[in-house]
């Protein structure tokens, strides 16, 4: 049996070599499908990996509260997608912060309210600058380091801002300290009290790119924009061991505050790294589906080529049967050919997918994520594609009548 398998493998290899161009193009079909799946999986993996690492860096005493739709149904997700600004519907409010701060075991609470606005200095004006509204506790939870100046304090938070490294450079055309300079947002003047160190991590669990952001107090942001929507509340717990207890208490306090509405999630540990928005889930799901469709198209290519090969080699099948090949031998021969085509395509796609992922990683903060799960998924998928799309042509070849096939002389 092992001998026959080796023979089938060699036969398939010869057949594939004989039709190099055709085989290459067929492989390419599979490769593109596999490459897109690899690309999506590795990028998605890299995102949650980045967040996981960050959470691990910050420490295990972090609790996060996020607004959620009342039920995570498809209708809600679609609704969220079709609404222009999904965060405008946040169910968290500034007074929730106080409620959480009163919970026993909570040492620091900071809201994260992100909006975008035009920021001007006496030199430059930038529109669409991400503005993070928070409070003085933020620095206690998030390990941000400042290059110049200091973070907001209770005394100065009403009229002060902290700039991200890149933003400071862009606004004032200097990498030197800009502490003491003034910026204008919506006609209000604010003084720069601190400039952050370069972080270069635009993907994090706060969902904000600190290098380009302006940080101010949530109350001031509320004043200039009129209304503030909170995307997330970061909480530092007093003790790691009491995390479940504390998060339960927070949940109770918030439910009380909101008169029993459960439109928020309290997360800690690994849960934090789960995609924050359903948008992320739905987009990656859609992309995977598209990639899967392209893999199916590749599979159809394999089937097509195998059918051509079967009818081309009708005579060969007849000769092989006449000299003693059983239908099963013929079936295996053609199935092996389809399998080798798809596995070759899979390997090719794996390389192609990671090459693309590396290419993307050079211009984005992603780093391609390689895991044995992804490799296993690729191998199993290509095997499945090979069998599913190779079995029909192989059965067709095996069912040929040797007498008729022998008459079919090229």
């Amino acid at each position: 049996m092992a001998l026959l398998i080796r023979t089938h493998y060699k036969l398939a290899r010869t057949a594939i070599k004989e039709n190099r161009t055709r085989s290459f193009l067929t492989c390419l079909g599979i490769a593109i499908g596999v490459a897109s799946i690899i690309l999506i999986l590795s990028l998605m993996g890299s995102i949650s990996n980045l967040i996981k690492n960050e959470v691990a860096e910050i420490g295990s005493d972090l609790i996060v509260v996020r607004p959620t739709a009342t039920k995570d149904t498809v209708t809600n997700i679609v609704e969220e997608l079709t609404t222009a600004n999904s965060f405008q519907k946040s169910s968290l409010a500034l007074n929730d912060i106080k409620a959480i701060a009163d919970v026993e075991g909570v040492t620091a609470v900071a809201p994260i309210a992100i909006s975008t606005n035009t920021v001007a200095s006496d030199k430059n004006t930038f529109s669409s600058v991400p503005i993070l509204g928070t409070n003085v506790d933020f620095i206690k939870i998030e390990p941000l380091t400042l290059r110049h100046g200091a973070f907001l304090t209770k005394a100065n938070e009403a009229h002060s801002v902290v700039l991200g490294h890149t933003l400071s450079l862009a606004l004032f055309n200097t990498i030197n300290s800009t502490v003491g300079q003034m910026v204008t947002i919506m006609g209000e003047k604010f003084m720069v009290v601190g400039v952050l160190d370069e972080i270069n991590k635009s993907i994090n669990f706060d969902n904000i790119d600190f290098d380009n952001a302006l940080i101010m107090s949530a109350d001031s942001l509320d004043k200039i924009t009129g209304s503030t929507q909170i995307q997330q509340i970061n909480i530092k717990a007093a003790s790691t061991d009491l995390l479940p207890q504390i998060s339960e208490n927070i949940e109770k306090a918030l439910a009380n505050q909101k008169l029993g509405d459960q439109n928020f999630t309290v997360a800690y540990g690994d849960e934090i790294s789960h995609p924050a928005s359903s948008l992320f889930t739905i987009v990656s799901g859609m992309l995977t589906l598209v990639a899967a469709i392209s893999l199916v198209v590749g599979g159809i290519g394999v089937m097509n080529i195998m059918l051509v090969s079967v009818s081309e080699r009708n005579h060969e099948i007849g000769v092989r049967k006449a000299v003693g090949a059983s239908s099963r031998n013929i079936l295996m021969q053609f199935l092996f050919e389809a399998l080798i085509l798809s596995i070759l395509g899979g390997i090719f796609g794996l390389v192609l997918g990671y090459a693309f992922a590396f290419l993307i990683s050079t211009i984005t903060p992603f780093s391609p994520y390689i895991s044995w799960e992804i490799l296993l998924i690729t191998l199993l998928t290509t095997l499945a594609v090979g069998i599913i799309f190779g079995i029909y042509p192989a059965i067709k070849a095996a069912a040929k009548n040797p007498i008729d096939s022998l008459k079919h002389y090229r």
Partner: protein
Amino acid sequence: MSENILIELKGLTKRYGYGDTETFALKDFDLTIKRGEFIMIMGPSGCGKTTLLDIIGLLDRATRGEYILNGENVAGISARRQAKLRAKKIGFVFQNFNLIEDLPIIENVALPLVYTGYTKTSRLKQASSALKRFHLQEREYYYPYQLSGGQQQRVAIARAIVGSPEIILADEPTGNLDSRSSHIVMEELKAIHEEGNTIIMVTHNPSLTVYATRVINMLDGQIDTDVKTVADANLPQPISVKIKRRKERKAAIAASIELPTSDSVKESKESQESTSEPIKNSDQSDQTKDTKHSKKKSKHRRKK
């Protein structure tokens, strides 16, 4: 001599079509074939010769009737078992050679061995020695289209005998060849027959019947005339040797060959010796010398 019966066909019928289109390619066909016979089947087109050959070769099934091969009724066996018997017991030679165009001739010859479980090296070794017998050794890696018709048919015969089958079925093997190539092919078949193989051959050429030990004329799916030219007792018989391992077979056969009694046997012995020679991994010049030598031998034989 009843134990010497190789094939027994009883009431074999093959019907094509139903109702108004019903025709019989074979009709209650009875035939007994002994080991060592060289049978030529003749008859007009459409009398059922090829159908008979296909059924004997287990490529086709009879509509009714019994087919006993080596004492076993094989009329109703599974397709898988049919394939197994084809691989081990039957060699085919076709009118249009039926070589696989994409394979070099050595792999064409080795093809039956693929399905009987030989390793690639031993397959190629056996194919090489079979080709050597037909003086095609130096063309082992030629492709079929690079050979003449006569050479291609010799490759096909090498393929038919490589697995040492008991029966060789030839369907008009000389039909596509000129008279000279026909003669060479027939000489080869004769030599194979003299080693004790059973050959059943379909032909349209009456001049070839001189090679046969039995000539059957068919008409409308039945036997018209059946003439034996050699007594059953004088039929060449296969050398039976008991071996434990397949590898030892050739040496065992070579050792058990008896002293020649007639000219024809002498010739066959000569050719057998050349096949039973162990394959040396000698250098190229050695090999070509060897083939030149055997070429001379064959020329000599043809002059005779």
